[in-house]
């Protein structure tokens, strides 16, 4: 509140004798001392983001290799040409996109479904349910991967034993190049806690008057959800989509821990990040690794850019405050 008052004063008409004129310069001085407080981040930004970004681009034009010990030489666009014709780049990009095509909708729909259950006015023990649904999100990722690895084990896993009860002969999930994707998506379900929480907050913020109006108009539950709830929570859908997208670009841990980074079965889990890791930290071909990283960066900028551009057509900010 105080902020707005301040702004009003500073932007107000200044008379020649306005005693507040000196305050503007005081504000500037305060602003400069504020810069000292922000300094850790500014230094860190250059140290850990800006300079490495530029260096990374520079590396992509060299044959920098950490094990060979030879000084890096400028090789022009060789790495970039290699990238375009590298079958493993194509394969790992396809794997990542394929997974993303299943994982992204689930990363939105599943937490939205949980939130829908948990905001229901008819629900008892709401707080307890919310805590328990959130809990898997704080379980260490590696432990979660090991738990699901056992759960989906072809012979001893509970999933196949349950399927056997209803007469289905379950697949060898993590060893099957088709079924591995849904299995990976199942592991991802344990990470939706934060998305669920902000969906809950957002659904609770839907103005009750909108619901009342829709009910008076005789709208069905489903059409209330589609025409009232969805538009109001669209900023949160957008936010969760961006976060999930970044998660897919960085998707490394699960395939690495499950199959030891081998990309098995048959290259089906050779995710882009896994291939990057292999090139950079197994072969120590830093020049090519930097090229892979920059290509990912360009792709990420384009995709998130498109997402932000699309937001104007389906994200409604007018309901927020």
């Amino acid at each position, binding site marked *: 509140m105080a902020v707005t008052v301040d702004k009003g004063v500073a932007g107000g008409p200044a008379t020649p004798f306005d005693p507040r004129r000196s305050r503007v310069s005081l504000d500037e001085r305060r602003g400069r001392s504020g*810069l000292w407080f922000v300094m850790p981040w500014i230094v860190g930004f250059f140290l850990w*983001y800006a300079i490495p970004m530029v260096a990374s681009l520079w590396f992509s034009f060299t044959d920098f290799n950490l094990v060979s010990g030879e000084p890096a030489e400028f090789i022009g666009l060789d790495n970039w040409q290699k990238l375009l014709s590298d079958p493993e780049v194509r394969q790992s990009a396809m794997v990542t996109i394929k997974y993303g095509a299943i994982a992204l909708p689930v990363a939105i729909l599943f937490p939205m479904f949980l939130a829908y259950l948990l905001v229901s006015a008819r629900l008892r023990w709401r707080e307890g349910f919310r805590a328990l649904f959130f809990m898997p999100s704080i379980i260490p990722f590696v432990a979660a991967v090991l*738990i699901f690895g056992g759960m989906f084990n072809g012979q001893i896993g509970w999933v196949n034993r349950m399927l056997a009860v209803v007469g289905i002969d379950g697949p060898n999930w993590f060893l099957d190049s088709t079924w591995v994707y849904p299995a990976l998506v199942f592991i991802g379900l344990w990470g939706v806690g934060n998305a669920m929480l902000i969906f809950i907050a957002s659904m609770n913020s839907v103005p009750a008057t909108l619901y009342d109006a829709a009910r008076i108009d005789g709208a069905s539950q489903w059409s209330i959800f589609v025409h009232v709830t969805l538009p109001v929570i669209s900023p949160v859908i957008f936010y969760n989509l961006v976060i999930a997208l970044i998660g897919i670009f960085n998707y490394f841990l699960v395939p690495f821990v499950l199959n030891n980074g081998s990309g098995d079965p048959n290259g089906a889990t050779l995710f882009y990040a896994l291939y990057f890791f292999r090139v950079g930290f197994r072969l120590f071909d830093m020049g090519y690794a930097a090229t892979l990283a920059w290509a990912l960066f360009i792709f990420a900028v384009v995709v998130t850019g498109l997402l932000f551009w699309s937001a104007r057509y389906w994200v409604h900010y007018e309901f927020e405050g």
Partner: protein
Amino acid sequence: MATTLEKKKTRPAILAPEPKHTKRRKGSWLATGITAFVLFIFLLPLGYMLVTSVKSEQMITQVGGPILPRSPATFEYEGELLDIYTVPMPDGSEMDLAMLQPGRQVSQFIDPSNPEAGPIEWEGNWRGLPPAYELDPQWQNFPRAWDLMEFPLLLRNTLVIAGLGTIGAVASSVLVAYGLARFRVPFGRSIMVVLIATIILPRFVTLVPTYALFVRIGWVDTWLPLIVPHFFANAFNVFLLRQYFLTIPKELDEAATIDGAGPFRTLWSVILPQMKAALVAVSLFHFYFAWNDFFEPMIYLSTRPDLQPISVGLRTFNTLYDSQPNLIQSGALLALIIPVVIFLFAQRIFLQGIDLSGVQK
């Protein structure tokens, strides 16, 4: 500012249950039942972990064996270990009896609950009898996993990395958030935008040069790459703390300034004491980050297992004892029990959720 206040005003009204009409009462058990069922399925993998972690290798390898950690029951009788079978009795009931003397047509059994009664004769083929199982949890799996994965060492490493990182992350983020929330910093708006943009950046883009730098200055195989970068604030913490700063009335620091306190003094003795909850939250988030962090500890400590934190250690443990799911699940349980217990005690801090979508305003 005004928006946050408005939101806070309207939210409790919506959270409060709607006026009771009869429909709500009728539906409540149905909604609760559906939710409980979904929760049961959702948490089933935890059940798998718990049960498997106390099984023996035999119980696991036995195809179609019992779900629970059960093994065939035995009974010691006159110095001999006898197998127990579920035996149908002439009166139609079933009894769990220890087999004393197998025979083709007639077998002799002992009732374990009443051995003094002497042998019981039973007519029929004993080979058709199902063995009786009893609950037999293998608690020793936990100390075995504890020793094999060198849990105390992993715990120490994790706590040191997490502890020092937390100090750096909290201290630097508080300063930056204070600067952004309370001063008209030049380019303040752009700084906020770039700050949020760093979240979207795929982290691999900066990794290669950073790794090369740490190799050059000899930090690889030490904890430094996992601790020092956190002393430069990060977007999540800054954003969360900034939101807290904005809820503390500015009149407070103005009063402190009039009393002659400098900006640092104001932060330290006026503002920080008001936001202990936020500091606890940010510390906890960093603790969970460090407990979870996998990629960077793995590449920076790949040749130093004695310095690795728990996530990396657990993964190594998995590659070594892959063939023993019971040990793997015990290990997973050890790795998650501390975060889960802390969560159960500090639920409120986590259940607020992190939402940066409002930052554009």
